């Protein structure tokens, strides 16, 4: 007979997987952006394939934000999803959003200063801010969740 797991057991397993994914995905997201930044630095024109890649970064960023906002567990029961967004998770999420806010403000200030010395294309500004706005909250959330899961 198949062993049935309780919502709490399922939620705990998803929680751990969520932390692992949310640590791995932003790192992959950053590493996948290397070609974009190399191209920007070399001032080569964008080909169609580069534009598709930039669109893919945006979709990836949105997927990370959805994971952060919903807590995961899509397709699971309401009980499991409630546990995946329980009180401490909601607090961690709020702190993660706050860290993203500060990262964006500081990023805007840094880009503002940089624009005094060099011309910045809208694509650079967009990608830099999107990266900050996604990666910083995700990694903040991961740090808080990992600390919370530690006994």
């Amino acid at each position: 007979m198949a062993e049935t797991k309780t919502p709490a057991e399922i939620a705990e397993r998803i929680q751990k997987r969520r932390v692992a994914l949310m640590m791995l995905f932003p790192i992959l997201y950053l590493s996948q952006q290397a070609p974009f930044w190399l191209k920007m630095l070399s001032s080569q024109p964008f080909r169609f394939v580069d534009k598709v890649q930039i669109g893919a970064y945006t979709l990836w960023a949105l997927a990370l934000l959805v994971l952060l906002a919903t807590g995961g567990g899509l397709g699971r029961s309401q009980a499991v999803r409630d546990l995946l967004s329980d009180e401490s998770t909601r607090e961690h999420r709020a702190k993660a959003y706050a860290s993203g806010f500060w990262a964006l403000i500081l990023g805007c200030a840094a880009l503002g200063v940089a624009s005094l010395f060099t011309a910045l294309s809208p694509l650079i500004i967009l990608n830099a801010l999107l990266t900050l706005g996604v990666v910083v909250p995700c990694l903040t959330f991961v740090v808080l969740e990992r600390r919370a899961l530690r006994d």
Partner: protein
Amino acid sequence: MTEPALISSLRELRTEAGLTQAELADRVGVTRKTVNTVENGVFIPSTVLALKLARALGKPVEALFRLPD
């Protein structure tokens, strides 16, 4: 080291009641992680959660949590 904003006796009272973190979490509808963070003083629970924890352990909420002197 800074003093915690809330002193919790949750771990002692839970152990006294013979419950695991997972069992207590199940009774109050949160994950084991949340109970763990409350016990470790990392997370200050909401009033509702504090009252649920107190009810689950059959103790007044003041027995679980107190402010530092």
